[in-house]
């Protein structure tokens, strides 16, 4: 157990509304990631962070922003949700001495 908690686990919202997903970790990992999972696409990187206030874009970052004001929390924000952002979102942390990522349980977002 890598001590990762995602919230909310499920959310239904309407097009155009802002949404924030939270990832919380308890083990002081430096690297944190947000991925989305969609059928036929696997897991695609949205944004990642390599330290407090240090973030960078992934391959599908359009329409998303992130913030990391403290080590344990990595927030993903959809400023104005669209139906194409309906997906399952996974937060991950990188192991201390390895290249493996450890994932949270996911947040299922439906945008109507």
């Amino acid at each position, binding site marked *: 157990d890598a001590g990762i908690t995602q919230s909310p686990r499920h959310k239904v919202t309407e097009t155009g509304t802002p949404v924030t997903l939270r990832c919380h970790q308890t083990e002081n990992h430096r690297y944190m990631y947000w*991925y989305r999972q969609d059928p036929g696409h*696997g897991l695609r990187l949205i944004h*990642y962070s390599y330290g407090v206030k240090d973030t960078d874009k992934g391959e599908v970052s359009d329409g998303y922003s992130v913030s990391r004001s403290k080590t344990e929390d990595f927030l993903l924000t959809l400023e104005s949700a669209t139906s194409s952002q309906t997906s399952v979102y996974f937060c991950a942390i990188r192991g201390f001495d390895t290249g*493996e990522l*450890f994932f949270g*349980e*996911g947040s299922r977002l439906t945008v109507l």
Partner: protein
Amino acid sequence: DQQVKQNSPSLSVQEGRISILNCDYTNSMFDYFLWYKKYPAEGPTFLISISSIKDKNEDGRFTVFLNKSAKHLSLHIVPSQPGDSAVYFCAASGKVYGNKLVFGAGTILRVKS
């Protein structure tokens, strides 16, 4: 363009037999490869990895083979068990990608009892 490809969306195997899941990659700069398993409504969990300096890595019933010249890796599960039924993702990483993983689309494995 997908850099990591899993061309078989699904695979069905009889319990006790071997399951072979395949993965191809296009970028020769990848030097570290991983397999993840995912059950419904759960996050992916790390299964096994291999560095490009090796061509085989084994962990119990799971073995990963790497063929660098063909840019191909495979995951062998022997013997397959019903509890192995899940989605399997191949992932790759490399120094040029920093600490990021690039994932394939996944293969659904069904092990029939």
